[in-house]
């Protein structure tokens, strides 16, 4: 999920506060697919990703395109607006009650050597690794992916060599949203959710991106691992309700000692 945010921020320097709400929509799509079509979320995530890609593209084309050059606070306001619309649309469509997608996979556990593992978590982790790898291949091995990295690295340089910057931005935003959609669907059997979940998800993924370093894919992935490890350790050794405290302490520590994040570039 943080990978999607990193992509959007990295390329366009637009901070996407609608991230968590997009993820919640990925969850609801998984829910609908599971209820109406009996599709397991571990399969349905592909459809969530496609749907969110389309939503991301529409938001980018319709709104973000107009403000890429605007100051940051304008972008934050716009994305907060999008977040509110998405959250309330979910509220109207699905109601405020917490939901959870049932998946036989998530309910089962297996013995892996000496440890007892949730199959659901294992699959989620496996697919997340796979998606990060695919995204990496796309960004480093395809023309469009390289153009996206180039535009992130130096937007003016990309323009000079004749890159179709609009198309690059739209694709990056779409793919960012698709990652979020996939992530939402994948965690939907593990995490009860409701429309209001979006905000806390936005904050967590934001946290992850800052810890890993803005605009770094590897950073987002490692940041994600760090935050989840820190939170679960915190939940075990302190109290479950204190897990956010742990990840925010981690955030503050990292900001103190490495302001650009673990893998971030120094500000130019």
């Amino acid at each position: 999920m943080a990978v999607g945010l990193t992509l959007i921020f990295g390329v366009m320097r637009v901070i996407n506060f609608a991230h968590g709400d997009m993820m919640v929509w990925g969850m609801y799509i998984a829910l609908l697919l599971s209820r109406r079509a009996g599709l397991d979320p571990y399969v349905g995530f592909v459809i969530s990703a496609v749907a969110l890609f389309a939503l991301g593209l529409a938001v980018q084309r319709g709104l973000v395109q107009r403000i890429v050059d605007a100051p940051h606070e304008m972008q934050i306001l716009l994305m907060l607006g999008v977040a509110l619309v998405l959250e309330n649309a979910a509220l109207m469509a699905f109601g405020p009650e917490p939901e959870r997608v049932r998946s036989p996979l998530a309910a089962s556990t297996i013995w892996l050597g000496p440890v007892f593992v949730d199959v659901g978590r294992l699959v989620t982790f496996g697919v997340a690794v796979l998606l990060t790898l695919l995204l990496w291949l796309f960004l480093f091995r395809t023309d469009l992916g390289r153009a996206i990295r180039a535009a992130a690295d130096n937007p003016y340089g990309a323009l000079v060599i004749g890159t179709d910057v609009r198309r690059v931005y739209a694709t990056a935003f779409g793919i960012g949203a698709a990652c979020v959609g996939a992530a939402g669907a994948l965690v939907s059997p593990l995490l009860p959710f409701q429309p209001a979940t979006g905000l806390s998800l936005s904050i967590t993924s934001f946290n992850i991106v800052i810890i890993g370093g803005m605009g770094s894919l590897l950073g987002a992935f490692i940041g994600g691992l760090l935050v989840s490890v820190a939170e679960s350790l915190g939940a075990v050794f302190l109290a479950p309700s204190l897990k956010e405290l742990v990840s925010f302490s981690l955030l503050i520590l990292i900001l103190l000692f490495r302001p650009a994040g673990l893998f971030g570039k120094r500000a130019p």
Partner: protein
Amino acid sequence: MSAQLRLDAVEAGYGDLVAVRDVSLEVRAGEVVALIGSNGAGKTTTLRAITGLLPVRRGRVEFEGERLDGLGPAQVVARGIAHVPEARQLFPTMTVRENLELGAARRARRRRSDALDLVFTLFPRLRERQAQLAGTLSGGEQQMCAIGRGLMAAPKLLLLDEPSLGLAPVTVKLIFENLRAINARGTTVLLVEQNVARALELSHRGYVIENGRIALAGTRAELAQSGHVRQAYLGL
């Protein structure tokens, strides 16, 4: 012979500021033409107006008889014009090879490897450094990389914005020798420079731009003998 590139009374600027007013010039196919002038004269602005990075407010730009003004940079590059911009504008966290290949992004893969061979032949240093991140190159290597990136598009016309800026004399010499070789292969060159002596050495003709206007035009010999050029730009 008719002009490959023609600017006719071009005006361009930033907000209320008119940085270039009434610039007319011509570049014929196969030529090297120098555009010289001091800081803030409007050289960069002129190049940006040609490549569509800045709108042409008045006048017209023609390339091979077709209008260029009003087109975006992507379309201008597609017509066969490559721009090696001021300050190089490389992609610092990408490798030299990726930077070069991005210059040929709109061409077929097989053509790219031919173009890459040509660039590596001209600048063997880039072959050695191909896996290095562009941001870690020395200034001279970065300039070579920027020129290489421009060449990867196999342009008919190459626009260069102060390629000698900030480089040691040996490096400048090397780069200008390569520009001569590039021109000898049939690429037209429009060269913006403040290193007037070097620029005139390489060029067939030149224009002097002052305060956004063409102040003087002529062949290399005419400019080199002009009292104004000698005094104001060559320090003689």
